[in-house]
């Protein structure tokens, strides 16, 4: 476990991709540094708030209709309140589940393709956070995308 301690970032790692405002053509020299306009910060794009965002991983197929494949990484912001049709992570039967949040006539429903919609009264305690982005590495997509499940309920 020691090796991970070192990896704990003090500051979020800022990996950046340079954006050129001219097309790069084969055979031509690279545009000079003058053309570099600004840097896209992928981290900031996906994780707007370092303090309240947590990374999780989806494993089920029930959210495919909402654009989330098994194996996708989810950025879950705990500080963001969900609005109608937000994708949220909810606590259901002691586990974390990805659901679509729908409010209708003053009632809130958590929906997914595989299970019956659940009606929730107060969102506190049951809604863990709002999913604000999801991503996957496509070059690794053929690898088994369901990670080893660490479960402590069996102890």
């Amino acid at each position: 476990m020691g090796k991970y301690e070192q990896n704990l970032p003090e500051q979020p790692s800022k990996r950046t991709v340079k954006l050129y405002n001219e097309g790069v053509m084969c055979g031509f020299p690279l545009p000079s540094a003058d053309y570099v306009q600004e840097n896209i910060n992928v981290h900031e794009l996906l994780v707007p708030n370092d303090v309240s965002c947590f990374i999780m991983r989806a494993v089920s197929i029930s959210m495919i209709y909402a654009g989330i494949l098994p194996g996708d990484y989810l950025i879950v912001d705990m500080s963001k309140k969900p609005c109608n049709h937000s994708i949220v992570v909810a606590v259901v039967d002691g586990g974390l589940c990805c659901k679509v949040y729908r409010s209708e006539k003053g009632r809130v429903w958590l929906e997914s393709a595989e299970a019956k919609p659940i009606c929730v009264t107060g969102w506190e305690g049951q809604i863990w956070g709002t999913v604000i982005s999801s991503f996957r590495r496509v070059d690794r997509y053929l690898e088994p995308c369901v990670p080893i499940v660490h479960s402590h309920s069996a102890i």
Partner: protein
Amino acid sequence: MRTDRAFALCDINNAYASMETLFNPSLRDRPLVVLSNNDGCVVARSASAKKLGIKMGAPWFELKELAKAHDIVALSSNYVLYGEMSRRFVAVLESCVCPDDVEQYSIDEVFIDLSSYQALHDLTELGKTLRDRVAGHIGLQICVGIGQSKTRAKLANHWAKKHAQFGGVCNFLEMDQATVDRRMARTEVGEVWNVGRKQVKKLNSLGIASVLDLAQADPDELLHRSSEMTDRNGRVRNQKAFSVVMARTIRELRGETCYELEKDKKPRKQIISSRSFGELVTQREPIEQALRYYVANAVRKLMDDRSVAGTITVFIHTNRFRTQDQQYSNHCTIDIDPPTNDLIELTKMAIFGLSRIFYPNFNYKKAGIILSDIQPQSGLNLDLFSDQVWDEKAERLMTAMAAVAAKFGRDTVKIGNVDHKLPDWERKSENQSPLYLADIDQVPIVY
């Protein structure tokens, strides 16, 4: 008496247990304990485990029966997780007030100097805002105690925790004297900040049992008290019973400010790196290996503080609870001249120290090193005869090793023969939760 000061103490409720539950909601409402490094004793409890009467520091093997009966979950401590959640906790508070007014006191406690906020804010309301913010951003419940001094803030925090009617925020500044006296009279003196178990005994013998008794005691008179102490050789000596710290505590309890925020991290005065072996060890080789590891750990802390150490102590001992074994314990202290933070030098000394005290055929339980006489690296005067070139070389090596560690992980480069795989003496943590926040392959799973 100055009354224009205000401090808050924010403290995470059942910190480690709450952090574990956050990422594993199946643990909600189940009694949960977190065990120390070697899974030896309880270092944290959930609310329901507290209700079962499990005490802090209780040895786990004594609790196994109770655990079966009440379905208690025991987890090994996951300090990588707690450290990151603690960092976020401080970050949330720093986003609410000026970061200069925030002092992290421990992994789950933060002092805030609220003096300059009184004019514009209702402090109780501000406390509630802090509480909501932390809950809303990182899902942890905190209690806030507010008072004219750090000691009062800490006491208010204790009340906020104990009594639900405060709603998690207890403010000394809003209480009238009669209420303060009544609450203080009902609280045991041991709950006061900086009053340890030994002092409670001495205070009790003077008839000081409650916090109110202490607040009404005369600090000058206490300072002149002496108590009879029996020393190691069985002689009875008269000793000063209380230090100046106790006088300050009394003044702080009365609402006077004696302690300011401590913003600069003070360098450590002593670094101890030791651990019990997972199993009993009789050979010298594994102990040497363990010592190399401990030295590396200690040197890392030393370099973080930019300090050097002047002495190193090596100690080993057998397990005194195994009455069937022959017992042995010894230590060896070596002066380091000039003081250094050189890993190679310190490792050599530790191994040499071990050679002076090690005897085969004992069942060793624990070994460790202590670095003391620690001073800042910058204030070091090299004497005329010390080999400066060698020192510079060593320092460059240390910097290079730190860089490799930063890039490839902490345990990549080591001195001599240190086992790379988690050796059995290093850790005996059987039920550690995943590194939810530090390793991409261990993030929480969502169904």
